[in-house]
């Protein structure tokens, strides 16, 4: 299994082909590597972002799905029948979810992969 890890300067996720950098709300590096259910960051606009242990992936082809699940220690939670089929995958920790998403984003058979980030959505 590939060991998923990120250094403190590499807290980010991919959106529309660009890295979105995150700042840990706790500077405790041990905490951000823990297997707690969620971690809190601030995005580049200072907005709070919560990272849990799941990620969302759209595959161009699912031919390598099982191989990816094994390589990153993931399991399928469900497949949403929208957007051409979006998989919700479970990782072992928030950092593993973010790292796996970033690695999968680079794969040619993956259209996009993102941690299942939660943030405040504003009623208008």
């Amino acid at each position, binding site marked *: 299994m590939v060991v998923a890890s990120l250094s403190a300067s590499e807290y980010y996720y991919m959106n529309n082909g660009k890295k979105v950098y995150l700042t840990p709300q706790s500077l405790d590096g041990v905490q951000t590597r823990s297997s707690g259910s969620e971690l809190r960051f601030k995005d580049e606009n200072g907005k709070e972002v919560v990272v849990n242990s799941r990620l969302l992936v759209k595959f161009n082809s699912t031919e390598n799905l099982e191989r990816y699940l094994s390589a990153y220690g993931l399991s399928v939670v469900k497949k949403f029948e929208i957007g051409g089929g979006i998989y919700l995958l479970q990782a072992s920790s928030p950092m593993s979810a973010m790292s796996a998403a970033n690695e999968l984003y680079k794969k040619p058979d993956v259209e996009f992969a993102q941690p299942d980030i939660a*943030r405040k*959505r504003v009623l208008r």
Partner: protein
Amino acid sequence: MKKRNTIFLAFMLLFFTGCGGGGSGTTAYVASSIPCTLPDIDKNNLPPLPAASDFSANPLYRQQWAIHYDQNFYGQYRIFDDASIHMDGDQRFIGRSVKVAVIDDALDIYHEDLQGTIVQTYDVSTNSSDVLPSDGTQNHGMEVSGVIAARDNSLGLVGVAPEVELYFIKMPFSNTVSISEIVEAFAKAKEWGVDVVNCSWGSGDVSETVKAAIVDLARNGRGGKGTVIVFAAGNGGDDAVGDPIGNDESSIPEVIAVGATNIYNQRTEYSNYGPELDLMAPGGERLGITTTDRTGVEGDDPGNYVEYNSSSAFRGTSAAAPIVTGVAARLLEANPNLSRTDVMSVLKCSADKIDASGCGYDQNGFSQFCGYGKVNVNAALSLVR
């Protein structure tokens, strides 16, 4: 038979100066013709013309300035004569059998003005059908739903499309909302086969994943005709002054981004703007939009309604978006053949070019501050039958 129409709508462009509205200020009307190209509209096998409804028995109807011109009410509050969406006249198409989904915080399913309209409900957090408010802050979904779907039942107000079938999807706006919860909401709307989706919310930072879900529903929903998805454009920041829309859900080209107008038929100061903006509708500023409230003392106000002059009155692009959603439902009843792109084109082509000096429309009839103008129900309906 389909045919391509290029219409030249003569718009009464209003130049309004001074405060007070309702004829008290200095006004001048300048007629202008702006070309607008409509797609082919399939007018084959349309349903027969239904009998017209009369909403006057609903006791709060007179104060629904956004959708109804009441001479006394307009005069009392010096509301500009053209401030409504011009829904008066022929109330034949009122959303019958059109499936409208509202994605919002909660719904009081026992409200007297929504009885008979709610078909299905779903909570993305609990995966249950329980969408009742779970804390005292969750009144927004009630307010949005009433604007669209309040029944013509002589009890309270009347929605823009009071005969729609309402589908409600609850999201946890009191806390953070995850990407997967939003994707699930749109997947549920797709599963239910809804025709129109109202989203009076946004993130200001839409993710690639959410965008993929929304675009899929917009393009492929309704059996390939496309689901009409309406988003509130947003109300600026803490300073209550409108901001650029930016990378928001409402910026997705396949959705309708709605800004807000006031009783003076002008863009409200808080309404977000930009090249992504599509349409305007009344959202209220000094006067709010009368709508349904949680039943009894649990809501924003005592009683079952939150009225236009309440300190808690419903205002914002959240109030403007469901007005456009209701109009879209009316169009789809009038002509079920319409595709999502047809509806968007018709609404834009038939919109009133309000406040020409303040909005600054270009040669294509577009303004970054007012989109293609304020939605006009009767003008839109005239293009689809």
